[in-house]
């Protein structure tokens, strides 16, 4: 049984007003336990809305969300327990910090779950370690940290709840390239250790190329593709028509393949190098005389 399944999930903002907007249009998909899913689509394609329905923050206009085979809205009073199982890190999460110290802020989620102070603190420290927050930062005020550190605190605040599914909405937005790479590496490190399900939303293909097992492509409120990463990346013309830029190296490899080189779709520079070096070592271009 799939961990999360949606059936004809539809969400409409402002139903019955002149501002009516279908943000998610009959999306049906299945996500298995332990998968790392990349969710991609240009701005306004409905990614954020879709993921907010998954943990019950938005109630779908129509359709169903099944968690372990059970409709999460079966009993609306129990929706909080769904939110503990499906953790959600919003875009620019640093604006949600409010406590006096970093540690207390990370403890907010675990304490809401009803954990004891010691247990909450233990989890908070572990979560802080996952996102690379130095222990001496934990006693500082969250408002004294740098932007990147604040973001880590906010992410730790959700990881500390130890959710079965972790959803991150554009966690790298506004970070410098190095901070971005480090954060992505930490997230995939966390995924390897914890072996839970992760949904990482991004509008940048590079971000998810390295880490995602499967990619969900959203376009114009609809889920247009949901396949393994390589397959999605090999459809570069289709993706570009939707305003998504495939990494440069993927495009180069695709055109080499078209020219008859024995290469495969490559998502990262290292992967491309691994394929090209042996070929170049042998010298000569296949097909050329």
């Amino acid at each position, binding site marked *: 049984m799939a961990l999360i399944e949606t059936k004809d999930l539809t969400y409409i*903002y*402002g139903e*019955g*007003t*002149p501002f009516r907007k279908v943000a998610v249009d009959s999306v049906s998909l299945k996500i298995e336990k332990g998968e790392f899913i990349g969710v991609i689509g240009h701005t306004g394609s409905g990614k954020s809305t879709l993921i*907010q329905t998954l*943990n019950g*923050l938005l109630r779908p206009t129509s359709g169903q969300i099944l968690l372990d085979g059970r409709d999460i809205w079966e009993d609306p009073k129990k929706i*909080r327990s769904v*939110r*503990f199982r499906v*953790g*959600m*890190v*919003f875009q620019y*999460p640093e*604006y*949600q*910090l*409010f406590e006096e110290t970093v540690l207390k802020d990370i403890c*907010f*989620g675990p304490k*809401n*779950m009803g954990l004891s102070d010691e247990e909450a603190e233990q989890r908070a420290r572990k979560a802080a370690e996952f996102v690379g927050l130095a222990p001496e930062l934990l006693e500082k005020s969250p*408002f004294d940290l740098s932007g990147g550190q604040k973001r880590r605190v906010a992410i730790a*605040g*959700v990881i500390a*709840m130890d959710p079965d599914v972790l959803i991150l909405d554009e966690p790298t937005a506004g970070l410098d390239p190095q901070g971005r790479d480090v954060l992505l590496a930490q997230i995939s490190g966390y995924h390897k250790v914890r072996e839970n399900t992760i949904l990482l939303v991004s509008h940048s293909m590079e971000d998810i190329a390295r880490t995602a097992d499967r990619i969900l492509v959203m376009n114009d409120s609809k889920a247009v593709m949901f396949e393994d990463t390589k397959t999605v990346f090999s459809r570069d013309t289709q993706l570009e028509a939707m305003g998504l830029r495939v990494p440069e190296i993927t495009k180069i490899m695709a055109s080499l393949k078209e020219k008859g080189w024995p290469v495969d779709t490559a998502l990262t520079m290292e992967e491309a190098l691994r394929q090209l070096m042996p070929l170049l070592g042998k010298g000569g271009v296949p097909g050329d005389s």
Partner: protein
Amino acid sequence: MIRDVALGQYIPGKSGIHRMDPRVKISLTFLFIIFLFVGSNYASMGVMTVLVAGILLATGIPLRQYFKSLKAVLFVVIFTSVLNLFYGSGQVLVQWGVMQITEGGVNRAVFIALRIVCLMLLSAALTFTTSPTELTDAIERLLKPLKIFHVKVHEIAMMMTIALRFVPTLLEETDKIMSAQKARGADLESGGLMQRVKALIPILIPLFVSAFRRAYDLAMAMECRCYHGGEGRTRMKVLKAKKSDAVAVIGALLLCAGVILLNIFLPGTVR
């Protein structure tokens, strides 16, 4: 959703009312509101009611929107009307112990209800068809004479513009913060009073922090563009009254004269 709250929101459109000079719109709205209270018999009140209905239709905005704006005052309307039923004199219609409903009371109730409803509808029509910038621009121009009393008209108008501009932004922000804290298991819906007040802390603190941050950013941005108040400031869109505005003003004045005449020549129902 918190942002569904109707806040006298601007609804873009292309009707003649949308395109009217906002100064004229504001002035006429005030004039009509005064005349809602001048009308003292059913004939003159009828004229005003038809006028309001005509304006609503002319804005081309779905009547549903107007009903929504009425919802907020429905209770006030019913409450005051019912209260007024029992005041007043004249022929007794229903006697019930010491309570009595008189003809005068019924008239008063009807008038009060009509006046409040029309007043709300008129102001809704104004805010639906006029963007906040147009509104404050017009208010600034209309208040200009107050400058001789050293009232800082431009600064007040600028503050109003900024405040109005940020209402939706802050609502959106509140929405986001609430969602983020709910995702961390914050319980906003249950518990006693103290618990609920406590539950607001995780929302209010980030909200204030971000409001201050925005205020600083905006102040900085304005200073960078050499904003220094109203002195010698010209505008990009100069308000210009058109021929149609003049026609509207003349029409409105004639109507008001009519209402006064009806008041004089027909007996008054309420005072």
